[in-house]
């Protein structure tokens, strides 16, 4: 006889979005059960670069990013543990005048959203950061951005949610999702059944399959970030670094953790497989990253890398996530497919989705992310 488990909200997927939503729903006193196929935060949430970056985002996403940034500072207090968030600032460099012009244009636009950016010339940047290469023409600095440890955040949200009364069920492979008169019925491979009037799908790259099963197919593909890390060296690169360019092969991003290792990624993506749940690091991309790392910070040429990794991320055609209520099914909500830039948004997504689910509306504009844009 299968057990029946009832709650106000069911969350499918224990990545950062699902775990944070569970946490903020408990803050509002809503009963919530989160079902995770593996362990919380194992996929895109755990393998990403760890960028807590607002600059460079799609401008209408900044209200959400700003709300999230406020939460990042409060995480130790909210979660009761340190997730290694460091507001070190974020510097994007440009190698060509037209890219510097793009930066200036972005700065003018972001100001309307309350994000103040500082454009600095190449020499001024090198005065401040002597390790930058001569090729850097200038940069855009976002003083309140930074980085954190992605391996810690989603599990910490899940633990905090659990402490506050959420039910977190890991190693739970949901094999059937049905709409009933009273809401949703989910069944696991082990035959256990869960019911709730509200369901949030935050299943990352796998979210597309579930949305399609509700008649809301979206153009999503799975790809893997190409990450690597150097051996530890004395802590010197304080801001998170990136590049503004229109050429994918020139994109590299890096951050140094206080422990000393430099984490990096960029210059392209690798294939990811939804069925095996694995993504590949392409050796040729790793080697290409080396030349872009040396191009920005020549001293990195003296180091060795000790590890590479990837993971399964979901990318929508328009490079924006699917977030908000379903366009077709009442009580159904989505927060998935964050296109490789969801880490910074995570806490904000949790708070906004909890607000939306609990009150029926949110003060943060979500229209650009509605699933109906693909209908």
């Amino acid at each position, binding site marked *: 006889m299968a057990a029946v488990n009832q709650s106000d909200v069911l969350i499918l997927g224990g990545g950062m979005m699902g775990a944070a939503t569970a946490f903020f729903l408990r803050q509002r006193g809503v009963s919530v059960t989160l079902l995770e196929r593996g*362990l919380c935060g194992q996929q895109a949430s*755990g393998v990403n670069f760890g960028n807590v970056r607002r600059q460079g985002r799609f401008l209408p996403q900044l209200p959400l990013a700003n709300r999230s940034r406020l939460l990042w500072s409060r995480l130790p207090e909210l979660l009761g543990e340190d997730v290694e968030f460091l507001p070190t600032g974020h510097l994007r460099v440009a190698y060509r005048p037209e890219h510097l012009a793009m930066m200036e244009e972005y700065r003018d636009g972001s100001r309307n959203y309350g994000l103040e950016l500082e454009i600095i010339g190449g020499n001024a940047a090198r005065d401040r950061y002597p390790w930058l290469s001569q090729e850097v023409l200038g940069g855009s600095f976002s003083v309140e951005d930074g980085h954190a440890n992605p*391996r*810690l955040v989603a*599990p910490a949200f899940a*633990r905090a949610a659990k402490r506050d009364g959420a039910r977190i069920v890991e190693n739970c492979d949901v094999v059937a999702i049905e709409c009933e008169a009273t809401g949703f019925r989910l069944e696991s491979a082990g035959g256990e059944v869960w019911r709730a009037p509200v369901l949030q799908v935050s299943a990352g790259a796998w979210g597309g399959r579930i949305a399609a099963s509700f008649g809301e197919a979206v153009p999503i593909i799975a790809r893997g970030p190409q990450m690597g890390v*150097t*051996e*530890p060296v004395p802590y010197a690169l304080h801001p998170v670094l990136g590049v503004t360019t229109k050429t994918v092969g020139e994109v590299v991003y890096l951050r140094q953790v206080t*422990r000393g290792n430099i984490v990096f990624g960029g210059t392209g993506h690798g294939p990811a497989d939804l069925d095996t749940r694995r993504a*590949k*690091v392409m*050796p*040729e991309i*790793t*080697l*290409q990253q*080396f*030349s872009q*790392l*040396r191009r920005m910070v020549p001293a*990195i*040429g*003296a*180091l*060795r*890398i*000790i*590890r*590479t*990794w990837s993971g399964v991320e979901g990318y929508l055609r328009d490079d924006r996530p699917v977030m908000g209520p379903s366009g077709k099914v009442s009580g159904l909500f989505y927060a998935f497919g964050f296109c490789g830039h969801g880490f910074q948004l995570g806490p904000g997504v949790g708070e906004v989705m909890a607000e939306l689910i609990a009150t029926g509306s949110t003060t943060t504009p979500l229209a650009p992310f509605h699933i109906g844009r693909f209908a």
Partner: protein
Amino acid sequence: MAAPRVIVVGAGPAGTRAAEVLVAAGLRPVVIDEAADNGGQIYRRQPAGFRRRAEELYGTEAGRARAVHGAFSALRGRIEHWPQSLAWQLRDGTLQVERGGRAHRLDFDRIILATGATDRLLPIPGWTVPGTFSLGAAQIALKAQACAIGRRVIFLGSGPLLYLVAAQYVKAGAQVAAVLDTAPAAARRAALPLMAVRPSLLIKGAALLWRLKRAGVPVHHGVAPLRIEGDSRVSGLVFRDAAGREQRLEGDAVGMGWHLRAESQLADLAGCTFAFDEVSRQWLPRIDADGRSSVDGVYLAGDGVRLAGADAAELGGKLAARAVLQDLGLPPPAGIDAEQLRRSLARMERFRQGLAVAFPWPGDIIAKLSDDTLVCRCEAITAGTLRRSATALEAPEMNRAKAFTRVGMGRCQGRFCGIAGAEILAAARGEPMQAAGRIRSAAPVKPLAVAIEVETP
């Protein structure tokens, strides 16, 4: 039709014999090895200009060393030998290699991984004090650098290598303070029936013990190591003897090791299936009797998969190469009796089981290590931190513990702390060691220079 491209990784006993069989069949394999010259760890060649005789370097194994070196020399000109080359990634029929600061991409039809093993270590308080070496490193110091790791050396561990290295140090004129074996004396008697399949090795072992005794080296069985002492240099080692008494030995160096740990990263990157080996208490790639892995085109031989020693490695190398030829549809090599090789390997496998009984891996000692003992040297992670990841953070296995604590995330990528870490994690959860799994390998197999030159296609 172009000749099939076959790569052999490793130029030790297994790789040498594999290449020999391939060459005899008319192939020209690429043989890749990290060392400057062939021989592997066990038959490591001395640097150019050193003139010691094989007997001085390899002792009772001089004859075998000469034979393996001779076989490799005879292959020169008929293989592509890539010394000082790091195979750092293997997947989908392509091997990535760093050689002389340049990146090379080698596509292959078949690959034989003869990647050998390193010392299996267990952490004890003070094991990072300078002057503490693995048994393998202590041996390399003798063979390749003609020096000892200290003036008065304490040897600690279990297994044949412990006695071999101690005897080699005595012979080289170093003072050996003591040999401390964590295995109880009774274990060896229990293992005799299994080990009797290779009487010549038993006799060699007895000879080693006799040599140590004649040199006046105290040998303690059934010890529990408590701590290595010293600040900038080892000053001594404290242990509890079999009778439960605490003893302190003076010494300026410690050589330690507990059998071997298979270097299986390339097999892991290739996607080979692994299974927990109860005998060696570690995860090993699964192979058939001849060395075929679960991945088509990937074969394994030697201590990187069987952990049965150098002469078993030679046989495994031959069998793997024979399997490659067979799978390529080439005629079987002359002079290789596969049935006989398999029978010999089976006998060596029984001996290996005997060794594991005689010199057991002291998992119980590791499980009881104090919380402040450093387990992961690269990232400075203690046993206490690891235990907390198992309990407070609910990490069920090593990869999760790694994500939370950085254990095994440093330069060595868990090669030296992974096994001990799994013991600690599993014990903290009240589960058997295999439940803690193994740290998944990630490229590069060893650190790779960011300055590596990439050939433009």
